[in-house]
């Protein structure tokens, strides 16, 4: 019985983990290139959720089609924020960038609240279910998982097969060297920042496909914290690392729940989160480049 539950939870965790991973790629990309931790990360996920909600509930647009729309909106937001704020803070101490990104998050939350109100919303996209014996999956969850994997692959191709991608890559490795080689470092920064934000907003769409309820302006906070753990699992500066970090995180979170639940007198969910932060600290100490990197 317990084993069956464990198996079911692990499979659920893997699917959820893919979406979590995708939701962290933007954070890792921005950190990798600009060395800026986007503390307002969750707010951008929230924007994606609202894009989906709005498109689905008012125009009846399929959430899958909301992904490119959200991505474009995110790119736009990213460019605006980069040129108004981040550009001037690239060389500033951590303090400034941490506070700036946090404030951007608050700004977005309050704007969305002004437009949509603070109601908890949701949408109901009916596409059927699939029963795999140990657990049941709504198709929407599987689409979210497949979409996430697809986006990770696309990002990989972009990095490795396009000129702009390799320019960004060279900036990650050595920004001074890249400048000497004639690469437009400022442009690469702007592009990666907005790409990161675009990915994050798009991931908001996929997350709502997984959990299509509880959408409200302040929903992002929890995802920011999860994204930190996942990003650290993946080495903090590698977007694909983050994707695999997400898978590992999903497995740990769901797997450890079943085990913690066997202990009497505890709150198992809280302990899974405790565990995830213990893992975060352990990785930061032992191998800050992440458990998946070869370095």
């Amino acid at each position, binding site marked *: 019985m317990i084993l069956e539950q464990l198996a079911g939870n692990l499979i659920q965790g893997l699917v959820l983990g893919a979406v979590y991973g995708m939701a962290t790629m933007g954070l890792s990309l921005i950190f990798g290139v600009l060395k*800026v931790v986007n503390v307002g990360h969750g707010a951008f996920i929230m924007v994606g959720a609202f894009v989906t909600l709005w498109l689905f509930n008012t125009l009846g647009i399929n959430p899958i089609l909301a992904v490119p729309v959200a991505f474009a909106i995110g790119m736009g937001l990213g460019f605006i924020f980069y040129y108004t704020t981040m550009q001037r803070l690239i060389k500033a101490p951590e303090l400034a960038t941490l506070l700036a990104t946090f404030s951007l998050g608050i700004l977005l939350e309050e704007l969305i609240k002004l437009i949509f109100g603070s109601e908890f919303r949701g949408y109901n996209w009916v596409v059927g279910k699939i029963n795999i014996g140990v657990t049941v999956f709504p198709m929407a969850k599987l689409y979210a998982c497949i979409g996430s994997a697809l986006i990770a692959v696309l990002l990989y191709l972009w990095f490795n097969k396009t000129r702009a991608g390799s320019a960004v890559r060279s900036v990650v490795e050595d920004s001074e060297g890249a400048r000497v080689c004639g690469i437009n470092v400022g442009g690469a920064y702007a592009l990666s920042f907005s790409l990161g934000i675009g990915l994050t907003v798009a991931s908001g769409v996929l997350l709502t496909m997984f959990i299509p309820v509880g959408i409200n302006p302040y929903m992002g906070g929890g995802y920011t*914290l999860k994204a930190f753990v996942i990003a650290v699992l993946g080495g*903090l500066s590698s977007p694909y690392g983050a994707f695999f970090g997400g898978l590992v995180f999903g497995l740990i979170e769901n797997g450890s729940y079943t085990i913690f639940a066997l202990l009497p007198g505890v709150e198992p969910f809280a302990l899974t989160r405790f565990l995830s932060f213990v893992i975060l600290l352990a990785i930061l100490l032992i191998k800050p480049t992440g458990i998946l990197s070869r370095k």
Partner: protein
Amino acid sequence: MKNKITKYYPLIPLLAAYLLLLLIGKNISGMWQLVAMLIFYCAMGQAFNIFLGMTGYVDFGYVAFMGVGTYGMALAITHLSHIKGLGILIIIIGFALAIVMSTLLSMAVGAVALRLRGAYFAIATIGVNEGFRFLIEGARIWNGSEGLIFTAQLNQILGRETASSLMTFWADIIVLIIAVLAAFVTLYYMKSKIGYALTALREDEDAAKVMGINVTKYKIIAFITSACFAGLVGATSWALKTPYVFPPEVFEIHYTIEAIIIVLLGGAGTLLGPVVGGLIYGISKYYLAIFMPGFQLLIFAPVIIIIIVLFPEGVVGMLKRRVKGSALAKFII
């Protein structure tokens, strides 16, 4: 000799500011609770500044120290209230427990996180804060998520009238004392070897190491000091003034952010910065809440971004640069 006295000149504007606050709060009716809030923000900023301002390390888990300090006081009150005759001693034990607990936590965090730098340090400290909170909730330590509510015990220990004046007046005075103490310590550190070592560290940690400065030692000193003061502020503002503890409220990351905003507004690494920052932050927040209820965050967020971009050194930082070389320079650091 003369040098020794001038060293303490910067305390004059600082003490004057606190005195003015006290006078306003005491003499103008209706101002005390506002003054109490301002003192809280100043004290939080002062405590935070000892570490962040002097080392440049951003401790995102700062509120955890306030949280354990709160628990220290709360545990003393809830566990000792049944012992007759202890009276006010329980409060003193509470403060001692707050210091011990925040010191222990800061030593543990320091041993782990202080090996990291920059963003890695910030993320690690967030991890400590959240992890600690979930440990309390998950393992149901100290009554878990149900928290502790102890006004009744406080009444029982001190008597109704005393407890009431403690909650609404004396707690704020204690916070003020903590803030002044934190300022003294900040100044002492700034003018001693620790300050110079930490300045070297802030400019270039590797170079400081090469020069033979024991960077780790001084970092840990500043870290523990900051945590102790945070614990005391928590024990007073969140346990004596607010007689309950719910874990999600005392480990709320927004307080860390507020502390960062205060320090940054005033000027990181300056003595007067947290006071100036705390006053600006508290007063503007208060009047925005009154005149534009519901919109303060919407206004605050872009203002903060503008300040970070245009005035990264803060009000006191700018003043310091302006008065450099003049007679006022002695007063402003």
